[in-house]
């Protein structure tokens, strides 16, 4: 079996003492930052990117794997203990987990979330290890037109199909695409939208955009509505351990959550919201204690948490095999690859198997470390949650600007960071989704160069996009995914007027 050999090789890379240390640091930092309220996994990765600047690519990616999973775990701790989900995928966890914590069952809630994340993460990583080589074999036959069509699918599903408003989602995407146009055109060397500012010729840094939108924007937003809500931390009372009954009620939701999370995450459909909500509603329907839902049902934490983690591992499938990020977090991971000039995709599997398989193996190790670290250290994480809000956000902004100062200490770059902060604030205020901007910035230039390559090969004939059956099918899917929300909305209105 090809996969086993590759995975064994990856394990050999991952268990080198230095790499184990990197994974441990990543897991620790990821949890510590992810646990802070208002910081989701994408921002965790963006904020911790400077820590990895000076490492070699292998060590840095391994640390990334730890940061990614640690950030996810930290986010669910916050959701359970203070009911502020850092991201919409933790909403279901916050719903039930916070009720459990209020009822003095915070320990079992944290435990089922940690063990569920471990189970789901491990199963999904196995899925990733087996699916990836198969998908890579498939992807090497992709022409530029197929890649372009695939990216169109990702654009549409990330922005329009699953959000509250397709118009606002697409607006976010096109702002991201516009930002992606800034800088020197790689094919002709022409400067676009640089307005004579030399710093703009290199284009907009993904990390500057993400940190500006997520960290500075979030700080501005929370400060602006500080007088509206007071956060309350629930103390972890009673036993940390799950009872027999808790285990019995948790294991099936873990497995079902994984079944929802991994495939949906692996499709270029973006976001962990759908699997977590599917899992939540399924558990509610199947539970023997449906009356407990909304009042702290353990199934409502176990299932969605597993779904969330499985889908996070699932998004690594298109990221590693096709170079296609389908969530803000995956876009940040791609930025992490790009800082070393590495482009994930079929070629990377062939050229740097040690890197890719080392990363996949590290995901297993990070998962084990999280399970061992988190429950005993829960007291430490709770202390982090207790940092007073003024210092917390002041610290977040210091760290956020430090990343930019370390990468490019220029007035222009810092002004861009502040500008993106204002943009992030306004987008939050007017309810525009943020992830499509980041995905648009990082994927826009890649989609453009694939399209131009396809058209150069066909001597400018656009029919090439429809001649490849793959590309034609994908473009059809993109079109349906684009139109579906509008049609469905129209149908809802029609129904409403009938009533």
């Amino acid at each position, binding site marked *: 079996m090809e996969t086993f050999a590759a995975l064994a090789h990856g394990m050999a890379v991952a268990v080198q003492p230095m790499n184990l240390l990197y994974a441990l640091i990543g897991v620790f930092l990821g949890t510590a930052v992810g646990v802070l309220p208002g910081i989701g996994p994408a921002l965790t990765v963006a904020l911790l990117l400077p820590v990895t600047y000076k490492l070699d690519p292998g060590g840095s990616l391994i640390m990334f794997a730890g940061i990614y999973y640690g950030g996810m775990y930290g986010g669910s701790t916050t959701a359970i203990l203070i009911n502020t989900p850092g991201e919409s995928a933790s909403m279901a966890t916050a719903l039930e987990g916070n009720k459990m914590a209020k009822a003095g069952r915070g320990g079992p809630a944290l435990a089922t979330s940690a063990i569920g994340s471990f189970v789901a993460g491990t199963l999904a990583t196995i899925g990733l290890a087996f699916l990836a080589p198969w998908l890579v074999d498939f992807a090497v036959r992709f022409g530029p037109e197929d890649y372009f069509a695939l990216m169109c699918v990702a654009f549409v599903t990330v922005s329009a199909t699953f959000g509250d*408003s397709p118009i606002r989602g697409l607006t976010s995407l096109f702002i991201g695409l516009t930002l992606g146009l800034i800088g020197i055109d790689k094919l002709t060397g022409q400067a676009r939208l640089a307005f004579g500012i030399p710093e703009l010729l290199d284009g907009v840094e993904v990390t500057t955009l993400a940190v500006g939108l997520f960290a500075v924007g979030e700080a501005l937003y929370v400060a602006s509505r500080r007088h509206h809500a007071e956060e309350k931390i629930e103390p972890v009372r009673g036993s940390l351990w799950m009872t027999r009954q808790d285990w019995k009620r948790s294991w099936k939701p873990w497995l079902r959550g994984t079944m929802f999370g991994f495939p949906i995450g692996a499709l270029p459909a973006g976001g962990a919201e759908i699997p977590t909500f599917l899992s939540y509603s399924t558990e509610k329907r199947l539970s023997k204690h449906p009356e407990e839902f909304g009042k702290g049902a353990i199934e409502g934490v176990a299932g969605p948490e597993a779904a969330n983690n499985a889908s996070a591992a699932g998004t690594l499938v298109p990221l590693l095999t096709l170079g296609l990020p389908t969530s803000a977090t995956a876009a940040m991971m791609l930025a992490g690859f790009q800082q070393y000039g590495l482009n994930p995709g079929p070629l990377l599997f062939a050229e740097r198997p040690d890197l890719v398989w080392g990363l996949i193996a590290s995901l297993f190790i990070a998962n084990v470390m999280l399970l061992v670290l988190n429950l005993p250290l829960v007291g430490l994480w709770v202390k982090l949650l207790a940092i007073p809000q003024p210092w917390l*956000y002041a610290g977040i*902004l*210091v760290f956020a600007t430090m990343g930019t100062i370390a990468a490019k200490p220029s007035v222009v770059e810092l002004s861009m960071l502040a500008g993106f902060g204002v943009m992030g604030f306004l987008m939050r205020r007017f309810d525009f989704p943020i992830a499509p901007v980041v995905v648009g910035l990082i994927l826009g230039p890649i989609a453009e160069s694939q399209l131009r390559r396809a058209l150069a090969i066909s001597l400018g004939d656009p029919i090439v996009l429809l001649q490849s059956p793959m590309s034609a099918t994908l473009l059809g899917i993109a079109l349906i995914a684009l139109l579906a929300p509008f049609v469905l909305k129209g149908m809802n209105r029609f129904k409403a007027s009938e009533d």
Partner: protein
Amino acid sequence: MTPEDASGDAQPASRHIDRAGLVIAAILAALAGVLVWDASRLPSTSMYGMGPEAMPIVVAVGLGLLAIGNLIDALRGNLPPRESADPKAVLLILGGLALLIAIIGLGGGFILATSVLFVTTSAAFGRRAVVTDFAIAIVITTLIYLAFDRLLTLSLPAGPLERLL
């Protein structure tokens, strides 16, 4: 785009025309205009297929359509409800960022610049103890400076304070 447009009117979503929505639509239309203007200056050099000016035009068309879509939403009052915002807090943080940029630009160094941002942010979140916060900020940013500049050998800009270390 100034923070003032955002903090002013905070009426609940209704069937009234949403003025902030009109501003959003206008900004998108203006952005589309900038793209077209910029693309028109590019010489078309490619022999086959798309030149560098094609993609900006495609994005501009998309932005134009979305400006219309946002305009319709605004006219129908379809924007989600907004809560009132505190403009003072936003301006304090932005002021802190402006000071940080100025201090970095003038060579004041990392510790001083980020400490100022720390103090203004914590003031934006309602802290009044400026001197205490400044002392805390100096300690924290000095530790960050030492950890990243010395330990991880990232180069952070040095000013008078950093040269004392």
